């Protein structure tokens, strides 16, 4: 009986699906993983986001190469200041998230609460500026059905706005958890993952800014 128990125990710990003790050889990899920022799942998630927008960028350039005159005539009709303001909002809220992560890592709970609140409040500027931009577009007759440029512009920027809206909802959750003191130097992965998502969305926006608002 003792030998059967012993065999079962070995089988459990060496199984590739075992959730208990890890084999000794996997320990260093696990240790390295714990030092990396955020959850691996979030890195996989932003990879999916990058693939999605990479496809959109290819669509953009095919449309631009097919209708160069339409793109050249369409870009000046966009609200450049609106694009600039959204960029400022994304970069500044991202910076506040960086400071939040740094504060959590050194167990500065007051600093974490301050910076996380700042990140959330600044991020709310995005829906506000987007609303103003749509008002500006409607007044100028800029609608998605006009031509290929405006169709691609609306598809990509609204899609980005949806990703950012999910990010803002995620920020609200992390904000509540920060005020509850849930993140500590030994447990920063949740707030790091939130920051990773927002920075990835920020990088996508920087590309969109150059494709539409800083069009040359």
């Amino acid at each position, binding site marked *: 009986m003792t030998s059967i128990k012993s065999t079962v125990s070995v089988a459990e710990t060496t199984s590739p699906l075992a959730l208990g003790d890890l084999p000794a050889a996997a320990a260093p990899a696990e240790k390295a993983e714990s030092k*990396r920022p955020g959850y691996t799942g979030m890195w996989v998630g932003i990879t999916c986001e990058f693939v999605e927008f990479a496809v959109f960028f290819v669509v953009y350039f095919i449309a631009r190469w097919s209708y160069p005159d339409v793109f050249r005539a369409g870009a000046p009709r966009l609200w450049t200041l609106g694009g600039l303001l959204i960029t400022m909002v994304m970069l500044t809220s991202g910076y506040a998230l960086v400071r939040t992560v740094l504060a959590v890592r050194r167990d500065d709970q007051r600093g974490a609460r301050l910076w996380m609140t700042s990140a959330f409040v600044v991020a709310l500027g995005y829906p506000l500026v987007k609303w103003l931009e749509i008002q500006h577009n409607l007044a100028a007759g800029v609608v998605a059905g006009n031509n290929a440029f405006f169709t691609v512009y609306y598809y990509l920027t609204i899609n980005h706005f949806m990703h950012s809206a999910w990010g803002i909802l995620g920020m609200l959750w992390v904000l509540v958890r920060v005020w509850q003191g849930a993140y500590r130097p030994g447990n920063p992965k949740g707030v790091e993952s939130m920051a990773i998502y927002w920075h990835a969305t920020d990088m996508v926006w920087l590309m969109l800014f150059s494709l539409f608002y800083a069009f*040359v």
Partner: protein
Amino acid sequence: MKRLLHALDPRNATQAWLALLVITVATAGIAVAERGVLPWVGWIIAALVWWKAWLVADHYLEVADAAPVFRRIVVAFISLAPVLLVVTAWMESR
């Protein structure tokens, strides 16, 4: 060149944030002022947008500490649109 790039590299997240804001305003200014005037301005915009994305990846995303596969994916993604912008500027200048 290497020394210049080192001097331009921000030392912390605050400097990176300020640099990002300045480059963003410069990008918009160049684009609006030079739109359709000089074909190679597209190359400058492509370089500036790559630089901005790299600053976010390096100082915000901490991509240097990420797993190598994700590091490569980030670099590939931030290079895609700038490379296609350069190709577009080259095609339009012919």
